[in-house]
């Protein structure tokens, strides 16, 4: 074992520059594969997430020429929207000032928001409870509390982190949650904590019935304004196309290139072993068993793969947080690939007479 380890180290040192290049080739390939793999997975998640939204006809009704804050008929509009929210035919995502950090965005969500955008899958919220969800870049932990409210202050507990593939629709666009704090509450609590500024503009009707639309229209007309329906479906489809189809295909193609680079690196290792076979055959000629040659080759391959894991995890860790392949997957991959490489490279060597290899001239 000791002798074979020594020989394998010599195999490495004799080809040190080639092997150092190979190690870096592997590391960069893994980095690229991690990034593209993460993008591909994210694209698939986004697609699945968007597919779920297909069952909702989310329609935003833009109020034109209206200032509800100073209008005497505003209560009629609010009344209609309140009803819709309470019956889950609407949701609101109202932007508010995030007092804890100006870099974050805070939205208060009402009505059918949790159900449509799947926040219910992260935390089972009953309709009366006020809780807080956070995007992945918000520096808070589950269980932390934040103070919210304009009229009065109230602590709200963070109950879940929102995965990166989750999006939500507000006004005429899809938004991500990365820097967002989402406060989910009910109308009563909202009314106690906040003023109604931006409430109507931030409310979207979901699968509205003709009756609800008519009711809305009548209420708005009293304010001498129009209600312009803007469907988010087309926008959503465009987004899906951009995020999934384009992003996925680009990432997929890039991943294929990286995989080919990885394969060529593997072939390079096999070629180094092929060159070493003459020496292996000389060792067999003078008494080495095949088992010892396997051991030597395995140690040689492992001596290449171990630095890859170490460098990948401990040196480049800072640059790659969030997109790394899990450690156990890498170790498993390296062990399996080392064993496979050893067996594949030596299969013919063992089956053929060693004479074929040592008769080769230098």
């Amino acid at each position, binding site marked *: 074992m000791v*002798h074979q380890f020594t020989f394998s180290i*010599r195999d490495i040192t*004799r080809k040190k520059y080639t092997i150092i290049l190979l190690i870096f080739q592997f590391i960069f390939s893994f980095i690229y594969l991690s990034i593209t793999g993460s993008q591909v997975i994210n694209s698939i998640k986004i697609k699945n997430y968007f597919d779920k939204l297909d069952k909702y006809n989310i329609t935003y009704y833009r109020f034109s020429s209206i200032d509800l804050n100073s209008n005497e008929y505003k209560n009629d509009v609010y009344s209609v929207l309140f009803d819709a929210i309470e019956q889950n035919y609407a949701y609101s995502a109202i932007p508010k000032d995030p007092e804890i950090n100006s870099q974050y965005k805070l939205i208060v969500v009402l009505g059918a928001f949790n159900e449509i955008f799947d926040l219910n899958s992260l935390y089972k919220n009953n309709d009366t409870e006020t809780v807080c969800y956070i995007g992945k870049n918000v520096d808070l932990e589950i269980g932390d509390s934040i103070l919210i409210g304009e009229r009065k202050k109230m602590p709200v507990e963070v109950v879940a982190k929102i995965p990166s593939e989750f999006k939500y629709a507000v006004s005429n666009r899809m938004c991500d949650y990365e820097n967002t704090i989402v406060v989910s509450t009910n109308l009563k609590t909202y009314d106690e904590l906040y003023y109604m500024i931006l409430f109507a503009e931030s409310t979207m009707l979901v699968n509205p019935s003709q009756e609800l639309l008519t009711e809305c229209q009548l209420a708005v007309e009293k304010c001498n304004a129009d209600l312009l329906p803007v469907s988010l479906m087309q926008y959503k489809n465009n987004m899906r196309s951009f995020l999934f189809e384009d992003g996925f295909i680009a990432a997929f193609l890039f991943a294929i290139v990286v995989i080919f680079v990885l394969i060529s690196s593997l072939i390079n290792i096999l070629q180094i072993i092929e060159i070493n076979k003459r*020496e292996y055959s*000389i*060792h*067999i*000629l*003078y*008494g*080495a*068993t*095949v*088992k*010892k040659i396997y051991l030597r080759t395995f140690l040689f391959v492992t001596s290449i793969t171990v630095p890859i894991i170490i460098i990948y995890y401990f040196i480049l860790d800072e640059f790659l947080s969030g997109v790394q392949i899990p450690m156990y997957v890498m170790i498993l991959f390296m062990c399996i690939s080392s064993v496979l490489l050893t067996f594949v490279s030596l299969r013919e060597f063992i089956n053929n*007479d*060693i*004479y074929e290899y*040592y*008769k080769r*001239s*230098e």
Partner: protein
Amino acid sequence: MQLIDLTNSYKNNNDELIAVKNVNLDLYKRQSISIMGPSGCGKSTFLNLIGLIQKPTSGNILINSVNVNDYTIKQKAYLRNKFFGYVAQNYLLIDGYTAMENVEIPLLYSNQKICKKDRRKKVMSILESVEMSNKAYDDVKELSGGQQQRVAIARALINNPKILLSDEGTSALDPKTTKSILNLLAKARNEFGLTIVLITHQMEVIKDICDRVAIIENGEIIELNTVEEIFANPQTKTAKAFISNLKTNSQEEINIERKPGSKIIRLSFLGENAKQPIVSKMIKKFNVDVNILSGNINELMSTSIGNLIIEISGSDIEIEKSIEWLKKENIRLEVI
């Protein structure tokens, strides 16, 4: 060691090619045998079969009456390590390793656990015997061909093998180095009872070290005899061609022109006959003229062989009488 009906074949584009065919051969302690034959006749394969480097398709290999054909890979590795030493024409040294490290390899696979200090001592001792101790720590690729071959021979002998296999192991050496290597092998043979099996076309190697010669053609041993017999009286066309080539290695063959009323005869004298004045006796005894066209005496390991090509002129009856007389005097002859 006994080789019984040893055959080795391989497939090439669905055709079965036979490299070695039904070879039977006994190898004895302290004996040396030379394998000769034209290129591609199966000499190297034969040597590899003996050394358990290649597997025979059929037949048995017996060492001390034990069939080693069915030995496990580990057992065969042990035999390659302890029982055989192998020297090849292209040295089979590992570049980037020192002479010391190359020679050390068989010791690393030996069942005996030898500490590094003792290993190095043993290696240095064998390198001294091949006059290479001053190059022990040199990378082998820095050494000359002759020096590399000495290192290869040291490696083959480091474990005191019972059989040394040499595949043209001295063909790349100059005559002086060849001589010193042959002395070394002769010493190992005499002191440790080493059996030597070698493939060579070098006259001096066969003369100096071999007891027997096996001529191989198309994978078969077509002639097997002592060196003296093969030199004096080759039976097969291939053997004759080889012996003739070997003889001409040391002298120019004379361009022979047959004259009317004369016969050209090749005479071979073995042992004491080689030193007798046979030709002058024949001239005195019979009414013939003798013209010596070429001649030599080869000193073999155990005896001498003289070769003479003469032209005899005279009457047919006198010539026939001369030939009969030469035969009676135990002179091997061939009318050319």
